[in-house]
């Protein structure tokens, strides 16, 4: 029973991990760049949602849409102003540009808001639904529901719109996409905007049950990498599967091990994936 409960919790938090990770995989798929600042955009989303809640009283679940829009713009600007300049540079430059970005984002929030841990108080924070002995935490359920909805919208965008198709075409073959008249630079701006915006909206969604502080992103880095590597770098459905598996691994391992050692198990899963299935479960 305890195990079943852990699996349910794992699936619920895993849905959010998928949303955190999908931006990373999307950007990699389209641009061939790993954005090491991805988790910091999630942190940014958490802060924006936090202040929208404090100042305007908007629930973080609702504000996730506003957060998406704001961070989408920030991400698009970052792509235009910074990352576009290293698109053809060696990998070392690409990696350290985004690492530098991480430092700037973390230290700026630290200077603006201090290192204090902040959280919001919502009416549904402590609620849980009970089915027999099983318990469904309401903030987890809402976070999962919203994440899956956003994921579905992303899927619709990629599959059913011209813009989404152009993006997938760019991901599949950059030069061929340029040949058929797709503006690749526009696609990169769109990809980074989407990728960072999605992570930020995930940050808003988890706010009812998570603390926000400037270095919160660093804690999610390992989860994010494992999600993406497990699903397959560049695969959007893969990130969903990867996220849910990581959620389950984490949640189930905490039944047998102290909470602090969860990340060790996730790391082992990460290494095992690299050894036995480096392309990921649903990788190209």
């Amino acid at each position, binding site marked *: 029973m305890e195990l079943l409960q852990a699996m349910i919790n794992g699936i619920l938090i895993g849905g959010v991990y998928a949303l955190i990770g999908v931006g990373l995989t999307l950007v990699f798929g389209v641009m061939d760049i*790993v954005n*090491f600042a991805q988790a910091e955009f999630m942190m940014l989303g958490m802060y924006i949602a936090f202040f929208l809640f404090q100042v305007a009283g908007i629930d973080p679940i609702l504000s996730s849409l506003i957060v998406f829009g704001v961070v989408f713009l920030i991400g698009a600007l970052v792509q235009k102003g910074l990352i576009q300049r290293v698109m053809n540079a060696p990998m070392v430059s690409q*990696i350290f*540009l985004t690492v530098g970005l991480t*430092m*700037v984002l*973390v*230290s700026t929030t630290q*200077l603006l808001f201090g290192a204090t841990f902040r959280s919001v108080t919502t009416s549904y924070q402590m609620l849980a639904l009970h089915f027999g002995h099983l318990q469904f935490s309401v903030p987890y359920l809402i976070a999962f529901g919203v994440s899956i909805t956003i994921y579905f919208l992303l899927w619709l965008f990629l599959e059913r719109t011209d813009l989404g198709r152009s993006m997938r075409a760019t991901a599949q073959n950059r030069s061929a996409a340029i040949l058929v008249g797709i503006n690749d630079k526009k696609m990169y701006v769109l990809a980074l905007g989407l990728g960072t915006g999605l992570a930020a909206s995930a940050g808003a969604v988890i706010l009812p049950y998570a603390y926000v502080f400037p270095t919160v992103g660093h804690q999610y880095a390992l989860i994010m990498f494992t999600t993406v590597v497990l699903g397959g770098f560049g695969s959007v459905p893969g990130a969903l599967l990867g996220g849910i598996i990581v959620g389950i691994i984490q949640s189930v391992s905490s039944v047998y091990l102290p909470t602090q050692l969860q990340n060790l198990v996730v*790391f082992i899963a990460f290494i095992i994936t690299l050894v036995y299935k480096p392309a990921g479960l649903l990788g190209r």
Partner: protein
Amino acid sequence: MKRFSEVNPTKCFGFLFLVVLFLLPVFVFGTKSYYLRIAVLVLMFAGMSNGWNLISGYGNQVSLGHAAFFGLGAYTSTLLLKYIGLSPWLGMIAAGLVSGLSSLLVGIPTFRLRGHYYALATLAFAEVLRVLALYFRHFTGGAVGLTVPYLGDSFWFFQFYGNRTYYLVGLFMLFMTLLITYRIDRGRLGYQLRALKNSHEAAEVVGVDTYRAKLKANFLSALITGMYGTFYAQFQFFIDADTVLGFWTISVKMALMTILGGMGNIWGPLIGAGILVPLDEWTNAVFTGNLAAVSRLIYGGLLIALILWQPRGLLYWIYQSVARVWQRSRGIEKIGGNG
């Protein structure tokens, strides 16, 4: 051995100049001097960044988690000293071996793959070690940290009064590190690494076992970094997980110093450390309390500016500028000669 008549006098003079230059701080500053302390840190960071340079600069495999090897080294020798009273000199050898062996853990799964996997794995490895060190606090001291037992001014226990001896030890270690990297640079492994940096496929075609070359470079890189972990512990008399296994405190600094000076060049890390360590000390002294994040902001901004402006580092820039000036002066001479 070269016979005396074969020794190039210019080179000999250059070498002597360097020796005098590097010994200067010992005579200029008092042993308790704060500046000498910074000088020791410059030597340490220059040496360990050379370790990073080996795999990431020469081998083009970007590590974002060399703090893992540094921290493992620091903990290995310190725990050996604390629990069985082993001399840190021997502890340093153990530290190098432990770090070197641990490098296989990230190297073996990732070096068969292309792309960003090594960067991701090193970042994750350091983070997991940090969490483990925090968790097993009875053993490692956790977040509180671990104090190196003070046993008096003793060479055998690698503990010295004042900074002068540390400076000389640091100088010797840096000299050895540079010598090793120089030998690797000019040796078989150096050529293999340069080949695979240019093109994996081409290197494989001409018979380079790229997987083994990367594993070797990574092992040596981790070994050097781990030994510096011991030096750090003996110099600071204190280690804690968030510092020695930290992403910002160690991993990023090693990388940034190398990039600033110039990657894939043995002098690059020295230039980078010579600039960044004093800068770091200065910002840490000026921006305290709520403003402590300013120094990281400066670092981040510097990293971005460097990548956009001069990704090949200062050494390359200086070299280029000098070459340009020299060419220009020659050009003018020619014109003058023709007229």
